[in-house]
């Protein structure tokens, strides 16, 4: 136990006594908390801008951050700080345009419009924003606490129980799970995963000669990971938006007006008591959903809202506002659920190295590019007296997340209430800027023109995916998991003495394989019932 406390303390020290960013009045300002602060402000702003999303901002800033902080282990916490700041800020900021202008800034804020906007129109925009902020941060905080407690135990359990063949089976399970739950049909999900694996296997492997390069010298090191991931996720999205713009001829579906009349605004007496049970329920729903790879915050928001509505209707007094007409409980149920996803999402990342959503993808990419921290079960080795530096980083990340929540509780609310104006930037100005910044940041990291062509190519792939309703996130997750999958499979094969049936020799791996097949059969769905009825495309 004292080991654990010792490591927690080291993690806190790593954050606050890390390398200084600059000196202010003789005091050295540690880089990590400062970066977290700026990341949080960026995240809130990005979340508040319809058409932008947290993962997009994380993607664009990652290469720039790496070029600023370099590839040393000292760079890890400042870079993670900024990325975590964006992740946390964006979950709060997404509610702003949803409430003020009926335009959800992120897909998971769609349900927030249902009650948030009516409340704002009824003259209480500040009250709606305040409820959204409180619920969102409360959900996020709960989820983080679950992460802090669960990730180390899960990791230790995994390392004890899983041998190489079982680890291989677990990776296969997570890929099939992601394919099954994301997007409109199983076939499209599997297609996305397969293309991701294929792209990642170019020029990797153990031979002295790179494979699958078709003799192109530019491909000898494979597709640069940032170029492929940003191409599919961001450039593809931009291509789609440009086409939408050309077709519609207008910059954006017009948001209807802001609040009309003013009544007593701000948090009302009794609001907190009223929304607390809804926040608690939704926080649990969001956390459970978040812990599963690939399911995502949109589903969490819908479930949170639906459960909240059911409870509300059963207990509603005559004076209470019903859901859909500006009920504070409705805002709370949605925002707590979608924000509770973000912490729990890191459980599979930190304990298994498996990213569950786009935000997690960029945390893994950051760790991968900088080096010195390999998310996975090996992180949580409580060694003494020798200090395990990766574990210190993990607790540093936890410290940063807690700090982010504190900032969100305090300054986040004031900042988000000042950002209503961002929802009015037309797409025709926004998109070129995003494209330019994306390409610049890729060039900063790769310094090769070839990387830009690769980005462009994957952008077209991302565009085709979206037009054919093939989900893009399974592609990205498969692209990232391809290497660990091949490596563990190779190692498992070798460690079992070249047994071709190594995946089917132990009860645990058989169980995981059963779950793989089960996920494909039982999670398979043809309807789009988990999709929001309309609204922005899922870019998470």
């Amino acid at each position: 136990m004292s080991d654990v406390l010792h490591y927690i303390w080291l993690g806190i020290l790593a954050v606050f006594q890390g390398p200084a960013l600059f000196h202010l009045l003789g005091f050295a300002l540690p880089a990590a908390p400062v970066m977290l602060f700026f990341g949080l402000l960026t995240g809130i702003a990005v979340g508040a801008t319809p058409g932008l999303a947290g993962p997009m901002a994380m993607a664009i800033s990652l290469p720039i951050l790496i070029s600023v902080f370099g590839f040393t282990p000292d760079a890890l916490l400042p870079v993670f700080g900024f990325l975590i700041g964006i992740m946390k800020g964006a979950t709060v900021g997404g509610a702003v345009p949803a409430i003020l202008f009926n335009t959800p800034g992120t897909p998971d804020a769609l349900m927030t419009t249902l009650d948030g906007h009516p409340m704002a129109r009824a003259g209480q925009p500040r009250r709606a924003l305040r409820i959204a902020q409180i619920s969102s941060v409360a959900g996020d905080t709960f989820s983080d606490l679950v992460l802090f407690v669960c990730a180390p135990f899960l990791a230790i359990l995994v390392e004890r129980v899983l041998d190489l063949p079982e680890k291989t089976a677990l990776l296969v399970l997570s890929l099939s799970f992601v394919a099954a739950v994301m997007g409109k049909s199983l076939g499209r999900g599997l297609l996305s995963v397969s293309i991701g694996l294929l792209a990642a296997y170019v020029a990797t492997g153990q031979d002295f000669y790179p494979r699958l390069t078709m003799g192109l010298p530019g491909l000898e090191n494979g597709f640069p990971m940032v170029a492929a991931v940003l191409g599919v996720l961001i450039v593809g999205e931009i291509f789609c938006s440009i086409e939408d713009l050309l077709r519609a001829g207008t910059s954006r579906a017009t948001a209807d007006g802001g609040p009309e009349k003013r009544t007593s605004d701000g948090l009302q007496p009794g609001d907190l008591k009223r929304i607390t049970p809804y926040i608690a329920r939704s926080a649990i729903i969001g956390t459970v959903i978040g812990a599963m790879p690939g399911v995502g915050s949109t589903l969490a928001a819908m479930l949170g809202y639906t459960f909240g509505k059911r409870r509300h209707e059963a207990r509603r007094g005559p004076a209470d506002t019903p859901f859909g007409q500006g009920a504070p409980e409705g805002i709370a149920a949605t925002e707590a659920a979608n924000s509770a996803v973000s912490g729990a999402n890191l459980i599979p990342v930190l304990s298994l190295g498996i990213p569950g959503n786009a935000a997690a993808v960029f945390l893994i990419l950051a760790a991968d590019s900088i080096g010195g921290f390999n998310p996975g079960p090996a992180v949580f080795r409580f060694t003494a007296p020798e200090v395990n530096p990766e574990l210190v980083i993990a607790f540093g990340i936890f410290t940063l997340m807690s700090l982010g929540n504190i900032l969100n509780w305090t300054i986040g609310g004031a900042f988000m209430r000042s950002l209503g104006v961002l929802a009015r930037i037309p797409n025709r100005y926004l998109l070129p800027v995003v494209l330019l910044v994306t390409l610049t940041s890729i060039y900063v990291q790769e310094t090769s023109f070839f990387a830009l062509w690769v980005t462009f190519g994957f952008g077209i792939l991302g565009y085709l995916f979206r037009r054919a309703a093939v989900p893009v996130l399974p592609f990205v997750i498969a692209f990232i998991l391809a290497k660990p999958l091949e490596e563990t499979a190779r190692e498992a094969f070798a460690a079992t003495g070249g047994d071709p049936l190594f995946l089917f020799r132990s009860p645990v791996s058989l169980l995981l394989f059963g779950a793989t097949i089960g996920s494909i059969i039982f999670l398979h769905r043809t309807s789009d019932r988990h999709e929001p009825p309309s609204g922005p495309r899922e870019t998470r």
Partner: protein
Amino acid sequence: MKSVLASLALAAALVSAPFHAWADGWAPPGPIKMLIGFAAGGGADTQARLIAQGLEKKYGWKVLPEQAPGNSGLNLAKQLASEPADGTAFGMVVTETLAYSAVASKNPDFELSKFTSLATTARFQLGLVAMKGGEFDSWDKVKAAAAAGKPIRFGTASDRQADVAYHLGQKTGIDFNIVPVKGGAGVMNGLRGGDLDIGWVAGAQSKPVKQGEMINIASGIPAALIDNPEAPKITDLGSDFNLDGYFMFIAPGNMAPDVRKALGDAIRDVLTDSSTEAYAFAQKAFGGASVVTGEELDGYMADSVDASKKLIKAVSN
């Protein structure tokens, strides 16, 4: 960004170069690109960067370290081949890169003659490592477990290590399950996680061995290991080959002899000067620097190539 940095560095080098040129007789005509054939953050990477830092401090040369990992150093060799041989580009690999790996690749571009060996920096403390207090913490226990029919998972970090593991198995009558993993760190992670039973590590095991977590059960080099001098040499256990080697700087081929000498001497100078961080690190991580240059190094490399050819022949029979 990089070109801006490079031109700034060039400017800096132009400003500072003349003074040192007088002092040492030779100075690089521009900033030096130092390729590092290892993943960022590991022991080999740290060592290379500290040497770069030492060269900058002692000689005023501008040295820009750059990662070129993968493929047992051959990725680096390939990249280096297209650089000029005027002393503005060299890279850190292991002696194995231009010996075993080059031979095994059967690619004439990687022949020893196509490169210039500048200087070694540290010798491997390569041991066969197991968890202390575990089932396999002595060679006798490994033999007994094998005799009892238990499969033994043997982690290796390069093809040469895998070949020697296989050869050792042949000579001792043990059919190892040889598992190729990423680097010595990969072997140690496998041991800790219970995915591997034993494995080769080239020096990074020193810390866990000193702390009593792991143990060298055999020495893979022609000498006794510093940390476990009692561990038998694999050549005493029956192997005809060992896994001796050095970390080494190489440059493109056909380098002028005075340039080669100047670079080799500068590296030696940094590594043997007890005031440099590179010296302190070599002491801590590798039990001290071990610098071989010039003809002595050429002879060592030629012998290594021969040994590699014999090893490949021995395991393919």
